[in-house]
């Protein structure tokens, strides 16, 4: 089925990084839920595979009042979905995870693998961007931290340098009166979104929208921030008409693909619907926060 490769199973981050620096063309495998599909189709056949799934030090979820949330790259989707801390402080992450694939895939696939796969249809990246997440990238030379938003470069391309791996996702503590929501169009629960929207809204003490983030999946070659739609909301007391206008603007900013699941035109229509829905839910949460 799969072409053979040389296989390494480092047990620590340091070992993994040494191997990555030694074998420049090596590919990382975490849960393999995305990578094995590619290898089975022989779209790509790596010479060296570095299996990081066994590095248990990168499987963690930590929350501290001051620092916010830290998720290790090798944390399985299902652990995030079921985490009491995440359900309490970032329910949107648990809801988003619950709509990814099926339990079997969520049990083995990792959050880091999802993000590093760089699929613009993926759900976590838009939600992380809405939550202002940063990524910690590690190499033998040291660590750097970049905005999630800067990470996606193109379809299946991310800003990892040779020798680098993702080690952690960092989410700051949201400002007071922040609400975040995610929704996507699925034929069946667990499908990749035909279109998806993550929206975060911050209200000031008078109830005016102080900040907004609107991020779309499967609407461009990378997770797409709908800047014009965000601007429409900022500084205003929000109502349904404004949320609908934001949907219209986001739709105009989208450049969605056309495939068997929907034409570009259909997707643009659905952007309107899903931005409005996610924004309404985010607003409701911001008001309740």
């Amino acid at each position, binding site marked *: *089925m799969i072409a053979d490769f040389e296989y390494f199973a480092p047990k620590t981050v340091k070992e993994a990084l040494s191997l990555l620096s030694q074998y420049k063309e090596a590919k990382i*495998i975490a849960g*393999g839920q995305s990578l094995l599909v590619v290898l089975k189709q022989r779209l790509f056949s790596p010479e060296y595979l570095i*299996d990081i799934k066994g590095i248990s030090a990168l499987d963690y979820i930590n929350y501290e009042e001051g620092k916010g949330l830290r998720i290790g790259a090798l944390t399985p989707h299902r652990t995030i979905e079921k985490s009491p801390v995440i359900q309490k402080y970032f329910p949107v992450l648990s809801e988003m995870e619950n709509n990814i*694939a099926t*339990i*079997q895939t969520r*049990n083995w696939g990792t959050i880091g693998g999802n993000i590093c796969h760089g699929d613009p249809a993926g759900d976590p990246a838009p939600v992380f961007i809405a939550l202002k997440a940063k990524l910690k990238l590690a190499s033998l030379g040291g660590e750097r931290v970049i905005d999630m938003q800067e990470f996606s470069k193109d379809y299946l391309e991310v800003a990892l340098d040779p020798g680098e791996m993702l080690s952690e996702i960092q989410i700051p503590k949201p400002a007071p009166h922040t609400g975040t929501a995610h929704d996507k169009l699925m034929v069946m629960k667990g499908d990749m979104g035909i279109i998806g929207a993550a929206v975060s809204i911050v209200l000031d003490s008078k109830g005016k929208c102080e900040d907004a983030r609107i991020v779309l999946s499967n609407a461009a070659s990378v997770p797409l921030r709908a800047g014009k739609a965000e601007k429409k909301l900022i500084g205003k007391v929000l109502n349904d008409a404004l949320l609908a206008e934001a949907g219209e603007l986001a739709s105009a900013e989208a450049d969605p693909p056309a495939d068997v699941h929907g034409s570009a035109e259909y997707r643009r229509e659905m952007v309107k619907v899903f931005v409005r829905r996610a924004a309404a839910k985010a607003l409701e949460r911001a008001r309740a926060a």
Partner: protein
Amino acid sequence: MKGELKELSLTINGKPYELKVKAMTLLVELLRNELKLTGTKVGCLDSACGACTVNIDGKAVRSCSVLALQANGRKVTTIEGVSDSDKLHPIQQAMIDHGAIECGFCTPGMVMSAKALLAENPNPTRDEIREAIQGNLCADEGYVKYIEAIEIAAKEMRGGK
């Protein structure tokens, strides 16, 4: 080196194995082709159908989407390891008694998903059962009886309560 056999030590159905496999071997290929544990089925080989579901360390996973070497040091349970020698597991018995099994091809995967669910959650709601077998396609449309059978098995496993 490429092509070289790699050592793999794992527990399958309670039995320790020391094996040598090619790195590109999928877990399902090891189970079915090397170990002749053919109860685990292959429907799509593409992580779409769930017929190849096994339990790794107690959790439901698709064995077509895991490298055999990734199970190193772990505990794998397949459909062959579910019954207590001749006595069927309550999940299997309930599926038979309740007429849940039609052609039977998806059944091993259904049992493995149900087993992982009940290990974690002995008293699941209907929705939780639905979610647990959402990743197991049944081409005979037999979901309702599977759901009911899992409910019956759960009750039996809780001692009738």
